[in-house]
């Protein structure tokens, strides 16, 4: 009693057994079995953990009257809302369809893994890659240089296209323009493009004497022969 008081005064102060009613029917006939089961339980529990062995477990063989009365009042049926009957009817189909889906996906994955993968490009050794890169750089350099070179020699973009523009100019204007130009210009650059009909060569030599002309031509021929010799 002293030990129980040290552990729990509440339990020690509980009413004594003399106030209890007579045991329920069949209690004594089942008592040996209950005791043997308790012994067996205790033997199983001992040696596992001294703390656990000191606890009296409520085993299935503990009579109902030893337990709290509230347990007898509670229904074991769950108060939670039950799913509809169809849920359990359809459940197996849902599970099997998910399994089929997973198997299909697995098969697809296995097939994909079995198929050999052909590389799109073979791995090029670094040395060869560098050689090709250098060659490509030289080709690009030469290409750009020649492009720049030919671009500078060509006609500027803003220059006039003479053959396209010439027919647009009025003939009279053209004659007036040619008439205004000095003869040197015509002989040096533009003579080939001038129509012979429009060029009055007679006017050029009209004031030169025939005799002077003959002397000049003879001298010119002699100097040409000297040069040949």
């Amino acid at each position, binding site marked *: 009693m002293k030990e129980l008081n040290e552990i729990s005064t509440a339990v020690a102060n509980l009413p004594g057994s003399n106030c209890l009613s007579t045991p329920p029917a069949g209690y004594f006939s089942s008592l040996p079995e209950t005791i043997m089961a308790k012994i067996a339980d205790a033997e199983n529990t001992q040696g596992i953990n001294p703390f656990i062995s000191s606890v009296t477990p409520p085993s299935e063989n503990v009579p109902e009257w030893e337990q709290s009365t509230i347990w007898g009042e509670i229904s074991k049926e769950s108060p*939670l809302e039950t799913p509809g009957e169809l849920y359990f009817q359809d459940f197996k189909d*849902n599970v099997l369809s998910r399994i089929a889906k997973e198997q299909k996906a697995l098969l697809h994955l296995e097939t994909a893994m079995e198929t050999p993968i052909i590389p799109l490009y073979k791995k090029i050794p670094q040395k060869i890659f560098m050689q090709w890169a250098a060659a490509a750089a030289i080709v690009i350099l030469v290409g750009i240089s020649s492009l720049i070179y030919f671009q500078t020699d060509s006609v500027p973009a803003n220059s006039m296209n003479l053959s396209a523009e010439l027919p647009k100019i009025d003939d009279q204007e053209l004659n007036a323009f040619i008439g205004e130009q000095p003869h040197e210009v015509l002989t040096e650059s533009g003579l080939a493009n001038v129509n012979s009909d429009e060029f009055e060569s007679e006017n050029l030599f009209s004031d030169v004497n025939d005799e002077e002309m003959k002397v000049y031509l003879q001298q010119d021929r002699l100097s040409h022969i000297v040069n040949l010799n």
Partner: protein
Amino acid sequence: MSIAELDDKDLVLQFHDPILKEKAFTSIIKKYQEKLYWHIRRMVIDHEDTNDVLQNVFIKAWKGLANFREDAKLYTWLYRIATNETLSFIEQKKKNASVDFDQLSETFTNKLVADKNFEPSKLEWKLQLAIQQLPEKQKIVFHLRYYDEMPYEEMSKILDTSVGALKASYHHAVKKIEEYILKG
């Protein structure tokens, strides 16, 4: 004898036959779906969550049944998968919501209170609320023992815990629940 009437051992044998595999597995589902459903539902409360977990349980069973040791009981093995899957689910929920045990317990309590049939005065509901105060593993022990009336030896195989420890755990769970209910 129809395939539905076969016992677990025969069902497992049938499962190894490619022709009968699916039929055998269907029978296994039919046989254990309700028991496993309630085992999971009592832990996660929500029907949708239960459905997800239960489906995963059977899928895992399908994958693992080929390697199933015939010396073990099929129902013990299925309960083991269901328990592990449920605990993983709860653990995942805790991680995702970044909550501790007390907050998670509150979440489950709130789910119970939100049930359309909830009646706080009824003892059944008080019991449910009291169970939510228990740690996860103690809850499982209580459910298996109280609702499924599973022998400790079977529970020991499912939970990988000694019979003595399970008895102690159940004892503590009962005491805590009693205290909660009597407090009012």
